[in-house]
């Protein structure tokens, strides 16, 4: 027996160590996977389950299985699809404003100077200021009676006696610009980081080849920051798509429904109409649309 057991003892050591080694990475990532599962997958599963329930709190205190009843209502809800349309305009407009303001400012800050260093800290202000403060601040600036920006708009003939927030088209444009202005610092920081990583000798080589400032931007800078622009654009676009705070504080979704985006529709479905299951169905559709749009957008990434 002793001889039979003897050789197997040293053989078990490496096997045990190797199993431990194999299991260790799983053990290390397990807590993170568990947390990710708990905070992302479980709520998503709950929303999906909820969207398949029939639950109008005024008629039914507890949810019962409703199958596709909410999706059926949703596909016939014209005001919801109008809100989806507005949300795309809002999202694309917000990202456009962020790019339009963010890229030139990042290019400016890329020049080494004390002014750019100071300004790059100040530029973060809109990003870190809470929506409530910004919302009320902008409401004052656009006040039809005493708002300074409203006064300028009136002088330029862009607005009448009342605030631009009273006009359906101008109200949407105004809050898109404000939303883009708030998100712009994130774009500036990301683009600035990408700009810093471009080797200077490429610019020197382009200059030697006779490329002017515009051609250097188009052929050197833009390709180098393209993936950053795309990735940050998608992230900011997703944030914009899920917005609620700014349009709610500024206009409550009005005038009429002019600034009612999907976030506001979901809020109203839950807290005003007491239809949580219907709101869940809207969220699922929102998620699917955004997922498809993000996949399509990521295809625009440069491979080289």
């Amino acid at each position, binding site marked *: 027996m002793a001889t039979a057991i003897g050789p197997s003892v040293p053989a078990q050591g490496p096997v045990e160590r190797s199993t431990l080694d194999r299991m260790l990475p799983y053990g290390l990532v397990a807590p993170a996977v568990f947390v990710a599962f708990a905070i992302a997958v479980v709520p998503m599963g709950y929303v999906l389950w909820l969207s398949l329930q029939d639950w*109008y709190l005024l008629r039914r205190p507890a949810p019962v299985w409703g199958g596709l009843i909410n999706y059926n209502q949703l596909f016939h809800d014209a005001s919801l699809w109008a809100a989806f349309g507005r949300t795309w305009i809002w999202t694309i407009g917000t990202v456009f404003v962020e790019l339009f303001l963010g890229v030139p400012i990042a290019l400016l800050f890329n020049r080494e100077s004390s002014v750019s260093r100071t300004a790059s800290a100040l530029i973060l202000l809109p990003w870190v200021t809470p929506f409530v403060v910004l919302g009320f601040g902008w409401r004052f600036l656009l006040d039809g009676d005493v708002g300074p920006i409203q006064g300028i708009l009136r002088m330029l003939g862009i607005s009448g006696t009342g*605030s631009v927030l*009273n006009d359906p088209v101008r109200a949407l444009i105004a809050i898109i610009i404000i939303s883009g202005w708030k998100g712009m610092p994130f774009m500036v920081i990301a683009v600035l980081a990408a700009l810093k990583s471009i080797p200077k000798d490429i610019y020197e080589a382009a200059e030697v080849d006779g490329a002017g400032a515009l051609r250097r931007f188009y052929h050197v800078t833009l390709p180098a920051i393209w993936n950053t622009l795309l990735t940050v654009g998608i992230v900011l676009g997703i944030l914009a798509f899920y917005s609620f705070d700014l349009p709610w504080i500024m206009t409550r979704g009005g005038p*009429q429904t002019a600034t009612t985006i999907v976030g506001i529709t979901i809020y109203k479905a839950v807290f005003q109409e007491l239809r949580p299951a219907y709101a869940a169905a809207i969220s699922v559709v929102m998620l699917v649309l955004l997922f498809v749009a993000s996949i399509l957008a990521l295809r625009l990434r440069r491979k080289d």
Partner: protein
Amino acid sequence: MKLHFPRYFASRFAQVITCVALAVTACANLAVGETHIVFWQFSTRDADVAGWKNAIAQFEKINPEIKVDMEIVPWADQQQRLVSALSAGGLPDVSMLGNNVVAQFVAAGSLTPVDDYFANYNKEHGGDVAADVWPGDKGYYYLSGHWWASPVCVETRALYYRKDLFRQADLDPDNPPSTWEQLATAADKITKAAKGAAYGIALSTSLDYYTVQNFMSAYLGYGARMIGENGKCGFNTPEFKAALTVYVSMYKNHSTHPDAPSMNGDTFRRGFRDGKYAMILADPGLYGDLKSDNAPFFKDIGIAMVPAGPKGRAGFLGGWPLVLWKASEHKEDAGKWIMFVTHSDALRSLATAANFIPGAVSIAKGSPWNSPPYALFVDQLKDAKPYQYPSEAIPQMGQLEVDTIQKAVQAVALGQQSVDEATAQLCATIDEVLAR
């Protein structure tokens, strides 16, 4: 087995001490037999919070076995908190509630009737607490043959006006507008006479609650009703259209702020306190605010009843009661708290501290509510009516007041729809919501 006695005993000793401490703590609670009532209170004003704390202290003094844990949930967040708790759990035992949404939570099956507590209170103290509720409030709290709430506060709006600006516009300061037409005419004259220094009236046409709270006095005064005899929208009538026309005319002829279609009630109120408007429909609390502001025009402030329509006067009927949630595990004790604080001396003290008109008629007819400025408001309460008057409260009111009535007012004010179009659209939406 070798034991390390000092370490062994130290460890055991610590375990025993911990167990004893836990047991003593648990027994202490059990011995006293305390019940904790979770109470959601919606006001964040210091005076209100102090008033509630005082009421809780009085209650706990005479009921030492019951502790009331007050949690402040701001008015702006209360609907979200309640609906979230309703669907995910976590409702309190007792809470305040807007009078217009009591029916909503009754329909959701989440409230407990308080009839038994009313009956017990009557037996113990004599009198009839149900008869002491304001007539208008009964429409909100007495549903399907049961009482679902016990009123704490009741509110109505009267017309504050500035006599100095009336004189400037050659209007009689002792003869304020008593009809909606007179109000519109006076607002126009004052605006013109003020030449940009002030607007005639602070009148909202936005999606803010302040719009429906003002406009309801107009449409009820003109004889319009929200729900017709057939249970469907009753607004598609000449009376409603006349009310909508006269109300919106004050925006259209520039008698109010140009941003009225996007402004909220707080901004208008602040503006009146700053001297920007000659008239505003507001609650009694504004009088105290103007006094504490030391407003230069304070001595020129007059208060009159809300303007009437061709079919009479209808004041806004605000207010909030306490309700008992079905999820409560301490209903008897929670009921005791509700009855204590909504009646007798406790309510009188609370209403005096927090500066509101009590929901019990007998208390509101005593001091200080029988003298200015309250007396006029108390007098007007007999004409205060719910939005859906004369129908019984409907569960969908929370949605209808915001998303239908106010939208119609805003659409006409901004010229996006005519009165006829807005009314037709309004009724289509109301019927759709009612049929849901």
